[in-house]
């Protein structure tokens, strides 16, 4: 039984695009498939569609659960549903697995039509711009000319921002949460450590591990452990784990002594059991490359001059990965362009991951903003 405000049982759908897609890198895909889910009903005017963009490890499975897997709740199930902040009685909500993903959309695990083998390392690097271009094909397919809103946290927020730049006429509201206009050197540095962990795993085989029937599990584990540290705040980690010992005493070994070690290992193992290493590499590069101001001499205000959407920008006080200051960069660039923007800086102790939690005030803000969107 689904709780009353759940979208309930959902099923992913798949769409195939046969037109080639030119990528930012210069490479092209001959065609591609995207898997997606939808919740709620598209209204007759097609004016109530909201696209939810996922971050590094997310997927098209945003809300609800599968009939054969009731425990597998969508990653933003606390936000999306009938009566929830992103209310599926009002909005038609779309979740999509991005191009290059490992949840069913065309990506490194797919068969390369040219070689009849898995792409592996041959899958071209795709960028946030490419994701958005692919998402636009999905919008066309669904008959959505203009999104009422595009919403995302972290890397998802970058896609919402990119939508406002690449398709200014096709997005009325951009909801950019716990995001940044570009990565800092420190952000890139963490990504590089994660990549090196994967690439230096003997099971990586230059990205062709599938051909060898192996997975670079230990590299992926390490990558996730490093990443996970940046998602949490120091204070939250301190509260949750402190220096608590696993066995109540120092073991003088390299096995788990402290609870935080156990937690990171658990998170790493869990992630490495289902996520694809090439997708991880590619996604971190997409993060690194994202910089709308790149072609505007670093001038973000000039880069955002194309945008026409209204914005909600939100950050979290303890997020040190994409700190509030990074969100303010976006806000002031929007102000420069006289665009409508609401900016909220939310007190939440959970660091970068706060955007996934159902903090009452945070959800109240999103609900209030979404309620005012005309459909």
């Amino acid at each position: 039984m689904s709780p009353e405000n759940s979208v309930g049982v959902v099923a992913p759908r798949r769409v195939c695009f046969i037109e080639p897609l030119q990528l930012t890198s210069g490479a092209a895909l001959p065609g591609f498939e995207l898997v997606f889910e939808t919740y709620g009903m598209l209204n007759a005017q097609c004016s109530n569609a909201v696209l939810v963009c996922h971050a590094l490890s997310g997927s098209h499975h945003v809300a609800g659960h599968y009939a054969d897997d009731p425990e597998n709740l969508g990653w933003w199930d606390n936000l999306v549903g009938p009566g929830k902040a992103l209310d599926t009685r009002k909005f038609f909500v779309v979740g999509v697995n991005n191009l290059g993903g490992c949840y069913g959309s065309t990506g490194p695990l797919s068969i390369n039509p040219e070689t009849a083998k898995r792409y592996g390392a041959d899958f071209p690097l795709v960028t946030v711009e490419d994701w958005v271009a692919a998402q636009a094909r999905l919008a066309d397919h669904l008959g959505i000319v203009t999104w009422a809103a595009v919403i995302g946290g972290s890397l998802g927020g970058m896609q919402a921002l990119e939508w406002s730049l690449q398709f200014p006429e096709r997005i009325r509201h951009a909801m950019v949460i716990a995001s940044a206009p570009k990565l800092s050197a420190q952000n890139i540095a963490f990504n590089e450590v994660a990549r090196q962990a994967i690439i230096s795993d003997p099971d990586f085989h230059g990205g062709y591990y599938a051909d060898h029937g192996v997975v670079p599990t230990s590299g992926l584990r390490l990558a996730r452990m490093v990443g996970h540290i940046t998602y949490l705040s120091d204070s939250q980690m301190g509260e949750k784990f402190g220096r608590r010992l696993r066995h109540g005493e120092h073991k003088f070994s390299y096995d788990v002594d402290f609870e935080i070690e156990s937690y990171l290992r658990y998170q790493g193992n869990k992630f490495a059991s289902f996520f694809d290493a090439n997708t991880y590499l590619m996604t971190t590069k997409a993060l690194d490359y994202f910089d709308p101001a790149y072609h505007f001499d670093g001038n973000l205000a000039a880069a955002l001059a194309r945008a026409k959407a209204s914005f909600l920008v939100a950050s979290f006080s303890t997020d040190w990965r994409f700190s509030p200051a990074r969100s303010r960069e976006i806000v002031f660039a929007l102000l420069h362009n006289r665009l409508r923007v609401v900016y909220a800086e939310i007190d939440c102790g959970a660091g970068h991951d706060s955007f996934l939690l159902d903090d009452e005030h945070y959800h109240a803000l999103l609900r209030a903003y979404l309620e005012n969107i005309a459909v």
Partner: protein
Amino acid sequence: MTEHERRAKAEQRERFDFAVIASWIPPGERVLDLGCGDGRLLRYLSETRDVSGYGVEIDRESVLGCIRNGVDVIQMDIECGLSGFEDNSFAHVIISQALQTMRTTERILTEMLRVAAEAVVSFPNFSYRANRAAISEGHMPVSEDLPYDWFDTPNVRFFTIADFENLCARLGIEIRERLAFDEAGCEVCEDPNLNGSLAFYRLGRKS
């Protein structure tokens, strides 16, 4: 006075304040409202004068109120200055009965006239006759425009019309217009520092 009457009176008074401020904002302008609360003034200006703009607010419930009111709000601490807001990016910047709740008075005034050509400021006049009477009787004043008990007030700066004008002179701020009203909402011309309960200023940079 019942709670209902009190609220009705407060709303009436608020509308009066809004009307005074609106009279100084040309229709269609772009404004910044500092300490905007739940955005009611901006909403009023938008509805009555087709004014657009942004509010700035630190209090999270007020930010939520702004969003509910459809008012664009930037959540930040004005006490830290207005860095990020570009020079002369607004026609008017407003601070309506909020300056007395902030510590960095000089910095805020200077910043206001950096980001906008004109500033509109309103504040309760501490040296209003009734306030003086309360002090002379040995008590902190509680009045229409200073409605808080001393132990419960959000106000941190207590100043008078005369004090404010001295500070403007020191900061090179030009007073372009001043209006003062008594507690009944009647305009005061004679000795506003004594007879004015609430003061409104239109300020600019001395050329």
